[in-house]
């Protein structure tokens, strides 16, 4: 059952080949069997089986949704009422959210089953899942390597068939990069497309939730449930949601693909470059035209991003004060000691680095030089994309400059880790949608192709991804030992 797609599972449920309870139990058994991967922070066994039982009774009635009774899993950044929401941090190790995130409410409304909460970098700050308070996650393609981050638990669990699909969030590549490193399909939607209500904030002008799955077809199904206007999120965009599955089979004849030359510099690993090149050739066979474009300010994306993201993080994380929820130190001497020690004890090193960086960038005397400057650079980067996307329909390139690296390899050098975000973070600065698709292997490790579209073109991106997945089988590969 664990190799089936959502559509196949939904058919099996309706044909009574198995019940949702049986399906859920099968996944729970696999999660237990492969628990060394450390994909889940919380396995919600009891809750999942209850939801499955309810789903089974729903399935008997006429008004069930496609996701009814389908077991999926949630990144532990989405608040779930009554079930621990840790955000990968000691700060929230004791946090039982008093309400559900809108995304969770939407899956509940479909009677989807939640298997549990997935591991992630602490407060989504990281590109390797190694900053989690709950320990590193292993990549099933090579368990000595990282799954990427911050949605590393989501990507690893999907690749290892410990869930059919999952949610992720993407602030600087946190859906696309782990999808690339684990050989699965991930979609980072347009900023404002998916509600951020109840999705724990890291950098509010960049954060966006999205689906992760094995195929574009399954990602489209999740996206249908996740997308939509939400009055509880002041940055949610009030715009009709298209049918994401309706256009999957549209022809790509005449599709104009732009290849940003900055994505194919000498720094790019040869094996990755040739995997990307083969993918582009497949698209040519499907009728696409290819031309070179330029994003001249891309080299400034990393500095601008790390100013803006750190600044917003330092503001957002000021809410963790040891007063209302989360970790509180023992016997504080005074209020300052309460704040300082509670935060000092419960945040990890990477989170502290970013709070310090952000506080510095926003402090008197440095605000213009760093924060305002970064926002101006952000404008330039956004204009680069507008220009490029006026010439072509989509941009394509790699997701990550490397394949999965060894656990511990980059932990001593935060800057080196930041530089690995080079191909993903500019997209968040502009607020554009983008996908990562499995497109081959380099040294037996998965390589992801990135497809970047214009605002609100998720339906087109899913169509472009699906057409590629009709003529290739990279997305169907299974890591050895997890068949």
């Amino acid at each position: 059952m664990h190799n089936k797609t959502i559509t196949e599972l939904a058919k099996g449920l309706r044909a009574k080949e198995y019940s949702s309870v049986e399906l859920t139990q099968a996944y729970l058994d696999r999660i237990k069997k492969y628990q060394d991967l450390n994909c889940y922070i919380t396995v919600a066994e009891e809750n999942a089986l209850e939801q499955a039982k309810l789903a089974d009774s729903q399935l008997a009635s006429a008004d069930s949704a496609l996701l009814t009774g389908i077991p999926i899993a949630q990144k532990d950044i989405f608040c779930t009422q009554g079930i621990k929401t840790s955000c990968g941090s000691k700060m929230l190790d004791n946090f039982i959210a008093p309400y559900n995130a809108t995304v969770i409410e939407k899956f509940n409304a479909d009677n989807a089953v939640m298997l549990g909460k997935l591991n992630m970098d602490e407060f989504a700050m990281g590109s390797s899942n190694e900053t989690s308070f709950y320990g590193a996650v292993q990549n099933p393609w090579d368990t000595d390597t990282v799954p990427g981050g911050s949605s590393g638990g989501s990507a690893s669990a999907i690749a290892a068939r410990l869930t059919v699909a999952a949610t992720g969030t993407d602030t600087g590549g946190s859906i696309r990069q782990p999808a690339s490193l684990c050989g699965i399909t991930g979609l980072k939607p347009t900023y404002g497309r998916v509600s951020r209500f109840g999705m724990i904030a890291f950098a509010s002008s960049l954060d966006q939730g999205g689906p992760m799955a094995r195929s574009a077809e399954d990602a489209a199904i999740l996206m249908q449930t996740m997308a939509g206007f939400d009055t509880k999120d002041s940055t949610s965009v009030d715009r009709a949601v298209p049918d994401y599955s309706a256009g999957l089979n549209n022809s790509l004849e005449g599709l104009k693909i732009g290849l940003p030359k900055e994505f194919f510099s000498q720094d790019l690993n040869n094996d990755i470059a040739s995997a990307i090149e083969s993918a582009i050739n497949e698209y040519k066979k499907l009728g696409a035209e290819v031309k070179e474009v330029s994003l001249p300010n891309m080299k400034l994306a990393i500095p601008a991003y790390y100013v803006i993201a750190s600044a917003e993080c330092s503001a957002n994380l000021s809410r963790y004060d040891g007063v209302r929820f989360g970790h509180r130190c023992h016997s504080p001497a005074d209020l300052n000691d309460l704040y300082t020690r509670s935060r000092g004890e419960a945040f990890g090193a990477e989170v502290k680095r970013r709070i310090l960086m952000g506080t510095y960038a926003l402090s008197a005397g440095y605000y213009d030089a760093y924060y305002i400057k970064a926002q101006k650079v952000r404008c330039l980067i956004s204009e680069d994309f507008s220009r490029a996307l006026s010439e072509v329909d989509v941009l394509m390139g790699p997701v990550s400059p490397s394949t999965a690296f060894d656990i511990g390899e980059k932990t001593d050098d935060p800057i080196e880790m930041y530089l690995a975000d080079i191909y993903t973070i500019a997209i968040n600065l502009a607020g554009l949608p983008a996908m990562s698709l499995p497109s081959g292997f380099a040294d037996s490790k998965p390589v992801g192709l990135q497809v970047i579209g214009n605002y609100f073109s998720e339906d087109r991106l899913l169509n472009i991804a699906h057409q590629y997945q009709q003529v290739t089988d990279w997305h169907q590969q299974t890591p050895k030992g997890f068949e």
Partner: protein
Amino acid sequence: MSLTADEVKKIAHLARLGIDETDIDAYASDLSNMLDLMTQMGETNTDEIQPMAHPMDQMQRLRPDVVTEKNQREHFQSIAPQTEAGLYLVPKVLD
């Protein structure tokens, strides 16, 4: 650009963030490296460019001034570290 240990302590105080004395030099070095990376932005002229705070060019939405939330004080305080008589408890602020 390099930050001194004293500057790191000052920033940590502004952020109300406890850091171990033994880690201060490492933070100073990491932050200095980050600042070096950020100074690359200075090479690009942005005098005529408007700062972009947000990817979507939209106005803050308004809603009718009506009560939408019910009082959930007890529910929210059930996860607080310390409360008494419906109030959050913190160390004494005034003597």
